[in-house]
């Protein structure tokens, strides 16, 4: 068998990214085009198939509500409330996730003893333990922050653990050779090394913090996008619900993009260089 023959038909090298500069405008255009096309099809489908508004409102109807919620100013206090809950919850989740994840990854006993409990707690639906949350954390913003944190911290934790375990052992050897303390080793080797994992976890975490805040508001709130969803749902105001969902998505995407921007700056060394991607 002649390998060159078998190779002849093989496709060429794996696709490589085009430089960022030339990419932005084309891709942005594409996003816009896809979005418009999607909404167009949706609009037409809703009209032609006469889908009732309560099953799926038309994009136009939703857009109108989105605009109205904006101009009437109604959305802002709700948006702000939820945003505060999300950010506080995310911060808490990050601190706990990184802290606990580090302990779990570095101390075997903690892993074996604590991790099963973390897991067990994780599967518990937060709405089911709402009474405890309310009793422990009151009726203010706290239980919402806690719900957000509890839901967001798990993906962060898991990624921190995975990232720390993937540390190149030779780098640890070097630190041992330098008689570096545990803490120094952690700061200088393991922490930077796990950043790619950590950011993957944070990216999920921030999105889950949004969901968590909403779930927290479902337990009972008079302010916040989640409470608005409930009120509008009760009124079968589906276009209204979609308008809130739009603002929620906006929040999630914006926070996620901000995070990815930070990630790109902090994990700069993982960007493929020209040498390999040319």
């Amino acid at each position, binding site marked *: *068998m002649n*390998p*060159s023959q*078998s*190779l002849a038909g093989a496709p*060429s*090298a794996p696709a490589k990214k085009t430089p960022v500069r030339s990419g932005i405008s084309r891709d942005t255009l594409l996003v816009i085009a896809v979005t418009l096309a999607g909404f167009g099809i949706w609009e037409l489908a809703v009209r032609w198939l006469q889908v009732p508004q309560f099953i799926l409102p038309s994009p136009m109807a939703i857009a109108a509500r989105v605009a109205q919620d904006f101009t009437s100013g109604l959305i802002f206090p709700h948006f702000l409330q939820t945003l505060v809950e999300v950010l506080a919850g995310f911060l808490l989740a990050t601190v706990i996730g990184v802290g606990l994840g580090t302990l779990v990854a570095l101390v075997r006993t903690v892993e074996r003893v604590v991790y099963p409990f973390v897991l067990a707690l994780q599967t518990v639906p937060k709405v089911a333990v709402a009474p405890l949350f309310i009793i422990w954390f009151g009726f203010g913003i706290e239980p919402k922050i806690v719900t957000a944190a509890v839901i967001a911290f798990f993906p962060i934790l898991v990624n921190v653990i995975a990232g720390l375990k993937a540390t190149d052992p030779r780098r640890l050897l070097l630190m041992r050779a330098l008689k570096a303390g545990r803490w120094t080793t952690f700061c200088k080797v393991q922490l930077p090394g796990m950043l790619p994992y950590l950011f993957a976890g944070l990216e999920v975490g921030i999105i889950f913090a949004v969901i968590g805040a909403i779930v927290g508001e479902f337990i009972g709130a008079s302010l916040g996008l989640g409470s608005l969803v409930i009120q509008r749902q009760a009124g079968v105001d589906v276009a209204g619900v979609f308008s809130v969902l739009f603002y929620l998505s906006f929040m999630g995407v914006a926070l996620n993009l901000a995070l990815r921007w930070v990630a790109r700056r902090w994990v700069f060394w993982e960007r493929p260089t*020209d*040498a390999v991607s*040319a």
Partner: protein
Amino acid sequence: MGQAMRASPPPAVTPLRALAPVALELKELAKRYPTRDGGMVQAVASVSATIRQGEFIAILGPSGCGKSTLLMMIAGLVRPSSGSLTFGKPSHDTHPDFGIVFQDPVLFPWRTVQANVELPGEVVGMPREQRARKARELIQLVGLAGFEQQLPSELSGGMQQRVAIARSLMLDPQLILMDEPFGALDAMTREQMNLEVQRISLESGATVVFVTHSIAEAAFLANRVFVMSGRPSTVREIVQVDIERPRPIELMASDRFGVYVSHLRGLLNVTGDAS
């Protein structure tokens, strides 16, 4: 050649070059890398050369001068900033089949030694049996018989590099590119590997481009030695080693061979014998 020479230059005729068809033509190849601060590093300034089929080319030059970059451009893995590169059959604008050994082993940590060596065979769809047999032969060749089922992480540095060498020979390539393949090997193993590479290149008629830091190795193996200048690098001089191949290992002790080594050493500013 404004360089003062320490030994008389070698004769100028080369039977092989005149006869064989062109395998590879480099025309003013150059490479600039963008740096993080927005600047540019000129790694390779301008390299032109004609390499013929079956030729064994060794590349010598200071660390960081752009040897790996040049090899990667030939492999089509780094896009030249300017200049052109054409292969023997001009109708094909794709690269020919080639085997490559990088400066690092670049093994797959989840594959055993055997599976790492078999990889190229898998990629081109070589039948399982044939591939396994061939891989075992190559593992034997590089002196790793008995380690087939080990993982790369269980091997020493030199052993890993030998796995990479075995892998590069898996497809009997017509073009072999090697970047300091024997740098991590002890002298005896290195000698054996030199003889093997020489044998393979002659038997298969493959063209070989071989980066090395060992002046003696370059002179022993190559038809021509490209001596590169410091960065931004060009080929400062091409030294033709007009000794018939295969060359026996004893050749190294001969005066005939010593002339080439001294000449190269002079070009590279090497005083002693430590290489």
